[in-house]
């Protein structure tokens, strides 16, 4: 595949990038358009005559969007911290210690990561309701474990296996305990993998919809995805505000992707893990 890349190739490439980005660009335009240009006559124009940030302002002043953002941040951060902590120990043991039954354990982890969420929903919902945990952070973090923990264990195991195990052997010969080997030799090397996995888990928790939709129904406890979907009224859909909110949510993710794209790609592809 070492063909010379000609100008035609770049034209095709630009077209491809444009097609992928087009929905975003259009939504960005929609967010900046005043209502008069969003509908009717000028709905299909690329040029905005009177661009305004009204939609962005309204999202924060007329809707509890800041609250949604905060809820999502809390839930996604706590889910990430707790599942990464527990998964790190498990992945370390699977990758670096010798004991029987590893293949079975990994098989279970992989199988659980493929569970359809709907199949766990009814008992979890009934449990949370009877415990009074609906509309709370903990009530979302617990069910989020169903996908966060398998994802974290699977990824971390793959990363940890790449760290040469001779280092562990050498430390053992030098008389280090298992605990010392883990903290002094292993963790410094494992940090990049842990960080990458944390990004993937965070994005998965941030984007989750079904549990958030059913468990946290109060306005003050909704997460961003549910909040945005619920913007629509009975008869009208406030497209301007929805577009603005979508852009606000997308920008941090885009920045994250641009900064960490190498890591994310290696994380996504190293074990062919589901998103």
């Amino acid at each position, binding site marked *: 595949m070492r063909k010379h890349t000609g100008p035609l190739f770049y034209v095709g490439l630009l077209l*491809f990038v444009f097609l992928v980005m087009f929905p975003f660009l259009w939504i960005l335009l929609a967010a900046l358009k005043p209502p008069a240009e969003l509908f009717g006559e000028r709905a299909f124009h690329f040029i905005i005559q009177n661009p305004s940030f009204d939609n962005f302002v309204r999202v924060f002043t007329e809707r509890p969007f800041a609250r949604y953002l905060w809820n999502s941040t809390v839930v996604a951060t706590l889910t990430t911290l707790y599942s990464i902590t527990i998964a790190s120990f498990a992945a370390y043991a699977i990758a670096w210690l010798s004991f029987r039954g590893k293949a079975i354990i990994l098989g279970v982890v992989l199988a659980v990561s493929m569970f*359809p969420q*709907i199949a766990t929903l009814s008992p979890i919902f009934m449990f949370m309701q009877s415990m009074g945990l609906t509309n709370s952070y903990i009530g979302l973090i617990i069910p989020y474990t169903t996908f966060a*923990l398998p994802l974290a264990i699977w990824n971390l195991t793959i990363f940890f296996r790449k760290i040469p195990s001779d280092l562990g052997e050498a430390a053992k010969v030098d008389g280090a305990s298992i605990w010392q080997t883990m903290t002094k030799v292993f963790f410094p090397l494992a940090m990049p993998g842990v960080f990458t996995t944390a990004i993937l888990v965070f994005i998965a928790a941030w984007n989750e919809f079904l549990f958030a939709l059913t468990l946290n129904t109060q306005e003050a406890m909704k997460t961003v995805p549910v909040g945005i979907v619920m913007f629509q009224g009975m008869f009208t859909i406030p497209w301007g505000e929805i577009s603005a909110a979508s852009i606000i949510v997308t920008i941090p993710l885009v920045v994250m992707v641009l900064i960490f794209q190498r890591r994310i790609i290696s994380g996504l592809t190293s074990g062919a893990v589901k998103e």
Partner: protein
Amino acid sequence: MNRSTKRSLSEKQMGYLLIFPALLIILVIAIWPVMRSFWISLHDIRLNDPTKSEIHSSYGLDMERYVSTLPNLLRYVKREADSAQGSSKEKLNALQAQIEQMNTSLNQTGEVASRYQMIDQLLLDFKPVPIELKYVSLSNEQTESIKTSLAEVRAVLLQMSEQKLLSKPEGALGVIQGIEASIIEPNFVGFTYYKKFLTDARMWGALYNTAFFTVISVAIELVLGILIALLINRPFRGRSLVRATVLIPWAIPTVISAMMWKFLYDGQNGIVAYLFEQAGLISDMGMLLTTKAGAMFSVILADVWKTTPFMALLLFAGLQTIPQSLYEAASVDGATRTQQFFRITLPMLKSTILVALLFRTLDAFRVFDLIYTLTGGAPGNSTETISIYAYKTMFAQMSFGEGSALAVIVFLCVVLISIGYVKILGADLLSDGSGK
């Protein structure tokens, strides 16, 4: 947790110790709920009906309801008796005695008697009745006797109201029903729901929609994914920018991408609908979300846009592992590019493609967010997938047992698909790279 003590654990014990918390959590939060879902699907559970809001394996009494309605019945009969004359007065007095007799015999079990007082006091103070006090189990005989007594009382009252002997005939049935509603029947229904769904046209329709959506979108994603992977595998300027571009649709929440597409497809103001109409692909802008074929096409297009990048990245990683020397050798032997692709690239990519297909197929099969937001299953259930149907049954109809049966069906399909792929893949998926 400093392990500088002499009695340090062996490596094996340490391994199990470190794995234990993760396995325990997975067992409790993921595996147990799936089994529980199956158990729930064997019961008639309705969250909007207090007597069916949980699993009841035996007859019982909703004490709160019973305690608050029984006095009403007694009061009603007494009032009628006070205003009645002659034989009907006697009849009503007899009824009064019968109801009191029923209550006394019920109160003979210590359980009911002690709770009766407690709950009565709580209701008087307007305090909520704690869940552990609320339900009491009844034996089959007790239930039978209550039911017979109530039926007899009802029959007498009905007869009297027909003979115009009651001053307020409409009140009679209301209070009787109130007490009957406090009797909790066991709600085990076995495989009733599964039998029902076997012949349920809507279930098969949903299953067909799910399969159709899965096969078509995953096939398109695979072809596009291979093309994009080949594209970003070539060295060119701006490669990292293209890779980042490709990642963005993957990173945004599915519901947000669904909202975006909903706007693009909009019948009045949607640019994509407009462009399609201009290009003559559709006769009318509204067709995309209001016709069956249009809605399915729209959902698939949105899914392809969102998840092709993920596919492309997996395949790109697979391409990176193919040694360049193979292509060089093939070129020397005079193989054309096309031959190289079919003889080297595809066979070498086989296991990567299968893994990518497995993940994408399962993901597409349990699709929920995208369709819920974009069409909600409309028009006329033409885009309703099995997960959406299960969700609607649970949360719109509040029929949890029935919805859980559908959820279990989704689960079984996922298991079957996985088994199919794993059979083709063999054990490559879990091969232990470190060989320990």
